[in-house]
């Protein structure tokens, strides 16, 4: 009976609570999905500011922001998309703030029947399907194609590529066993799930241009002060160290 009497009170307070707390909206690149949630929880503990985050391909988020999506901050997986928003007058300039660098890895399932991942694996005829992210827009996809080109393997592997919409989906293609191997982000490879079911090889950095990830504060934001706090928090030394453990290279 008690429950019945108090349930409406709980319900109403649960509905009102998010409105009363300070909160900002974050648009974040798909490769940050395994990394960011604990960072954002710490940020809320430290500042009392709640962050509502949306994880998507950077290109998709850019399109949404250009069409009026009400985000306060945008963490892209490259510098090109945030720059595009600055040029369009939709984000604060003069340039995107680099907050981390991405690392490209070759990942396979342990039960794939293929030899351990290495550059030689890319030349293995047993590799029937290689998952990559869309090279026309996903920064990790561009890096993957650049690396394959540098190795003179792109033309050979082209018919065997399965192109994912974003880097998280590329990981899903290979994690579900549908692709034999994948060129994915180190952030995905280090998640507990993928770390236990597979192994990875770090693609040498000289094979692709650096995946510099940039952030911008959006001009339409009503909460710029809070948004700047989030950015400062992300760039602070302890958080940068944490990013390093999750597969992003710190900027300092």
């Amino acid at each position, binding site marked *: 009976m008690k429950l019945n009497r108090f349930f409406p009170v709980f319900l109403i307070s649960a509905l009102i609570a998010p409105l009363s707390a300070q909160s900002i909206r974050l648009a974040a690149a798909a490769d940050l999905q395994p990394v960011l949630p604990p960072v954002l929880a710490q940020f809320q503990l430290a500042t009392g500011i709640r962050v509502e985050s949306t994880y998507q391909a950077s290109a998709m988020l850019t399109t949404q922001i250009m069409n009026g999506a009400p985000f306060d901050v945008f963490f892209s997986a490259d510098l090109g998309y945030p720059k595009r928003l600055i040029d369009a007058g939709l984000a604060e300039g003069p340039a995107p703030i680099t907050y981390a660098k991405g690392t490209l890895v070759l990942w396979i399932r342990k039960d794939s029947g293929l030899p351990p991942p290495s550059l030689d694996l890319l030349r293995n005829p047993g590799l029937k399907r290689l998952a990559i992210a869309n090279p026309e827009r996903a920064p990790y996809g561009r890096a993957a194609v650049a690396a394959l080109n540098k190795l003179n393997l792109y033309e050979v592997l082209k018919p065997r590529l399965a*192109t994912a919409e974003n880097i998280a989906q590329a990981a899903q293609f290979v994690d579900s066993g*549908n692709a034999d191997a994948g060129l994915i982000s180190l952030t995905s490879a280090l998640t507990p799930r993928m770390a236990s079911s597979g192994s990875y090889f770090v693609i040498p950095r000289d094979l692709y241009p650096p995946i510099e990830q940039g952030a911008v504060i959006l001009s339409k934001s009503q909460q710029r002060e809070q948004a700047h706090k989030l950015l400062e928090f992300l760039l602070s030394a302890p958080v940068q160290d944490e990013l390093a453990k999750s597969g992003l290279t710190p900027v300092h």
Partner: protein
Amino acid sequence: MDWQAFALTLRLATTTTAILLVVAVPLAAVLVLGRSRWLPLVEALAALPLVLPPTVLGFFLLVLLGPRTPIGRGITALLGHPLAFSFTGLVVGSVIYSLPFAVQPLVAGFAAVGPELVDAARLLGASSTRVVFSLLVPLARRSLITAAVLSFLHTVGEFGVVLMLGGDIPGATRTLSIVLYNQVENFDYAAANHTAAILLALSVTALAAIYMNGQMRGGRRA
């Protein structure tokens, strides 16, 4: 304009529609004529793809038909490759995804045929198969056409399942809706408009053709 994707989309929609009619006519007939108390459950299952978001359906299929399940391993052994990232995989996904669009009009059409006609046919000794193909199907011909066109168009416009299951492979899984999505995402709005116009023209023509067919028959009855 990506004519390869255009041809692939038409091929996918045609194959899917043909399979769906073969599956949906007997299924709808059982749902209308059958007496089993499990039929409502069957009907509910046949309507389920309407509830599931296409991307979720695509994800389930990716995992279920992938090499990590017994079903998926069987398929891989049979085809020599996993079902994902192949035209066959898209056909399987599309048949499931468009099933309600074939079944629902047929159930409505078959149910609209007077029970006295069915009873009369049965009294004269017609088998269930004969009742379906000599009575229900001819009388519900418009429902059959509606089912075919809806399945076809629904497959042409299919996006979520293809996105999850396809892997964007030209000539195998890159359909018009994926091309359109890529063009929008790459900020190539002129090309996107062009692709969208073709998709729209195709749909309007097909729909107008059925409705014209209905008008010539002087009515809107099943």
